[in-house]
């Protein structure tokens, strides 16, 4: 098999205050996959995400992105390859205009001039926000800001897009629009979410992190219908939602 885009082996991490958040996590994500990372609050999902682009340094184990180990000397390249979209778009959008915000990532990696301009243009087009380049981010709706936040990362042409709770605080229409956008992106996706129907809709494969350990890895529908597993790890489907009643997500 080819080199996985994301290769996490035996990852362990304890916060400086001694709280152990991850206990030997293994995760492999291959090119073109869309994987949902599920788990209850406090399971260590965000801690795991922060290891993927080297914000946190593993206490044990290794992380590699397309074969490149996540270490100090590769940090800049790792951060280009791994695009993280954080939960609150207001944290991610801090420049005066949408355009400058989208340009921020690629410019940090030395893209300039016409190439930068076309990166910005393409990224905004991919999320359907092409007409908003000159607007200040705080004048956009929440759903639009979330989409721009995705564009700020797409502009870096990452190999894997990591989304932290992409559907949180969105109204149903914005939620669906974002799903349409994500489904048509030609990029590997790791999606951290509590929104289980969203995971089923978008991600053929799911992994479950609970108390710092990987406790499940399989097709999303199988994971969501495993009652014992779900109950043991505080995962609950919304009232009336039956994974059997909906179509399987398309692979790729």
């Amino acid at each position, binding site marked *: 098999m080819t080199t996985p885009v994301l290769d996490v082996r035996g990852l362990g991490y304890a916060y400086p205050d001694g709280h152990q958040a991850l206990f030997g996590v293994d995760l492999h994500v291959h090119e073109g996959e869309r994987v949902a990372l599920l788990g209850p609050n406090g399971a260590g999902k965000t801690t795991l995400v*922060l290891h993927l*682009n080297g*914000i946190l340094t593993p206490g044990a184990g290794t992380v590699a992105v397309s074969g490149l180990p996540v270490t100090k000397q590769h940090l*800049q390249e790792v*951060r*280009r390859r*791994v*695009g*993280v979209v*954080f939960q*609150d778009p*207001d*944290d*991610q*959008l*801090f*420049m*005066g*205009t949408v*355009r*400058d915000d989208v*340009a*921020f*990532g690629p*410019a*940090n*990696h030395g893209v*300039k001039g016409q190439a*930068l*301009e076309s990166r910005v243009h393409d990224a905004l087009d991919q999320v359907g926000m092409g007409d908003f380049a000159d607007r*200040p*981010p*705080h004048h956009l709706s929440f759903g639009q800001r979330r989409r721009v936040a995705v564009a*700020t*990362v797409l502009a*870096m042409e990452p190999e894997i897009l990591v989304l932290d709770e992409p559907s949180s605080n969105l109204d149903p229409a914005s939620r669906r629009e974002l799903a349409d956008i994500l489904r048509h992106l030609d990029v590997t996706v790791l999606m951290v979410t509590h929104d289980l129907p969203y995971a089923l809709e978008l991600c053929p494969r799911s992994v479950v992190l609970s108390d710092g350990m990987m406790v499940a890895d399989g097709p999303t529908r199988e994971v969501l219908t495993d009652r014992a597993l779900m109950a043991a790890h505080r995962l609950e489907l919304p009232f009336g939602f039956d994974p059997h009643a909906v179509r399987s997500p398309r692979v790729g």
Partner: protein
Amino acid sequence: MGAGHGHKLHYHGHSLIHRLPAHAKVLALLGFMLTVVATPRTWWPVFAGYLLVLAVVIALSQVPPLYLVKRMVIELPFVVFAVLMPFIATGPRTELLGLTVSEPGLLAGWALLVKGTLGVLASLTLAATTEPRELLRGLERLRLPTELVSILGFMIRYLDVVTDEMRRMRIARESRGFRASSPRHWPVVARSAGALFIRSYERGERVHLAMVARGYTGSLPHTEHDSRRR
């Protein structure tokens, strides 16, 4: 204080003053202010002249004078102080409207009032005719250190976010029956301010995290594009 939209200083328009380059306006404001401050306070007619100059600029900018006057409430604390001065200052006494007041205090109060008012009005005119973004570009062109320009940029960007957070916290307090009507309630307001500070601080950390995740290494890249308008 005042209306909830107090920070909306910009008045959209296309007048001559609006179209002037931002750095020219900043320099003009700076020059004007230095001149006003340096003018001896007893040159009474000169101050009238300054006001006239400002009035002409405001007329040219087509910003409604009332729009500026409303935003001048920010000067209120200084006005209070200026009014108090003749009463607290020492020195030879003089009669004014049947009250005995300090002469140097009266003069100092007058100077504070007139110079402060001219300054506030001039700054408001700049703010009303220049978009924050343009202002930042202007300061950049004036070679202000990039760190300072970035800090100002962050401030403009997050002012709305923080005011909004503050408003939500106030609504949440009031929904539980709280009204800040007496000094006994001040500790609650102070604690809210503390919470707001912590939240903003944490947001700062998250913003930094999001920047680092996109390859930020300590200096803002130049993302300006020359082919853009103006």
